[in-house]
């Protein structure tokens, strides 16, 4: 018999494409979520936070140098873990434990 080894960690995360736009969104996330951590993989970044990630339109715009619609997040996101607690014109919030 082989013993099962398992260690679990709870976090919210978002996987972003390694593109210019993805990188700008990543920088905005790191600015607004100072405790977030990034893991790099071929082709994508995984940004994790123990609790909550916020993506703010204004911050992304400051890195992009142009207007950015929060719906454009669709073009850089690959995947995520958590729940879209909010998604409006100003910001996107990903966290666990939200009701409908």
């Amino acid at each position, binding site marked *: 018999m082989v013993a099962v080894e398992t*260690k679990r960690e709870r976090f919210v995360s978002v996987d972003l494409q390694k593109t210019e736009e993805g990188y700008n969104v990543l920088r905005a996330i790191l600015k607004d979520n100072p405790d977030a951590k990034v893991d790099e993989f071929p082709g994508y970044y995984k940004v994790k936070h123990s609790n909550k990630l916020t993506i703010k339109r204004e911050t992304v715009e400051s890195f992009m140098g142009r207007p950015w619609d929060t719906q454009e997040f669709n073009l850089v996101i690959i995947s995520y873990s958590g729940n879209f607690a909010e998604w409006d014109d100003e910001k996107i919030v990903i966290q666990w434990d939200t009701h409908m």
Partner: protein
Amino acid sequence: MAKKKLTLAQKYHIYTRGLDWEPTYVSKKDIYPYAEYEGIKIKDWNKWEDPFRMTVEAYWKYQAEKDRRFYAILDGFIQNQGHLTLSDARYLNSIKLFIQGVTPLEYMAHRGFAFVARHLPGPGPRTAAFFQSMDELRHTQIEVHAGSNFNKYYDGFHSMTLMHDRVWYLSVPKSYFDDAVTAGPFEYVTAISFSFEYALTNLLFVPFMSGAAYNGDTPTMTFGFSAQSDESRHMTLGLQVVKFLLEQHEDNVPIIQRWIDKWWWRGYRLTSLVGAMMDYMLPKRVMSWKESFELYIEDQILEGLFRDLERYGIRPPLHMEQSIKEKEFLSHDVYWILFSFTFAAAFHSWIPKEEEMEWLAEKYPRTFNQYYRWRYEKAKQAKTPLPGDRFYYIGLPQLCQVCQIPMGFTDPDDPNNFVQRYVEYEGEIYHFCSDGCKWIFEQEPEKYVQAWLPVHEIYKGNCFAEPPKGPDDVVPQVLKWYNIQTDNFDYFVSEDYKNWKEWHKDMATVVV
């Protein structure tokens, strides 16, 4: 006077919800006849919250942009003969499995979500399902287009839709989706949006596609990540749907739990093919099946998602603990099956190179050397008359009645044996690879007694291009019916390998 500016949420609400009306000339039940028989109770469809708020106009715009990027990359790859810069042509065997096994499922998902969009009485989730139906058509088509270029130069890509309907290992994904689309709209959406999209597609699309990037396959990486970006909308639909159903009525809870239990195991068994692709078929590897399982399933799903669902009275899937126990065995078992039966498959397999065995031993310190390495040593000695200096399993395997994979899943408590389960139902015997599959059968035996099991169909004489002229002609006639041409056998005796060597002899000379 100009109207006040509405927020995205308010606007979307009017865009979508206000469109519905209560019919008066016919009964609502006649418009949506499939909404009640599953036993799901809905008190108020308006409680549905749209997480993504995508309008048609935004959909056209962003999806056209995503595809513009994808086709630009694909065209560039084709023009530059990008296939020659792949890490190794062995890599493409995982893409063959993908296009034969996954692409037709994307198509089935497209039609399945059209079903949900047509037949759920709630306009909110129906809208989300409709966009997903569109997305799934997209995925089918970008994958076909990516595969089209490889098809021109390599084997195994030429006939994926026919193969999906016929070839033995493709009955695994096919039966999975056939199971979902024959269920009612609520089960379908729980099965696919929740269990598959939310829990499992990450394994398929994120680490595996990262592997594609690592092996030089930019079109696959692009379609993978681009598809997965739609997928994140789908995951949200899945989560919202399940929470919505759970909140609507307490009677829904046990029904949903049963579906989660069923579809976790069904999907997990299906995804085991990805384990073999990741650990064995990528010449350059990003992470192991076990590592991805820990990250995407144990952390994100068990520790994240299911803790979130506790408050609704939902517990983790029934056989999840078994999946965790299997994580050090699964990919090895599945690759060993694929390896053994490559004489009847539209992809190649090979004995891992020594450095690859070392990687496997390092990633699986408690299982690879102990239970798997010796098989490849023995495979070099146990030659058969078939092409390739190695062993093939010259016979037909016993298949699991539910997942349809050959019954080769190691029992972690007895690692020299495979799990074997069976039940007798109405005078007939049925065999299963696991407690999970057996449990699924016992819940709905009437469904699984119908299974189209490739091995049995061969024995019934239903899988021959022409009647075999003798015992030696049986397999050739099956392969012909499968439309397998020079796609099978060991990689090192394949045309792919021969061509790859030829093309790389003195391929590029750089003149400054």
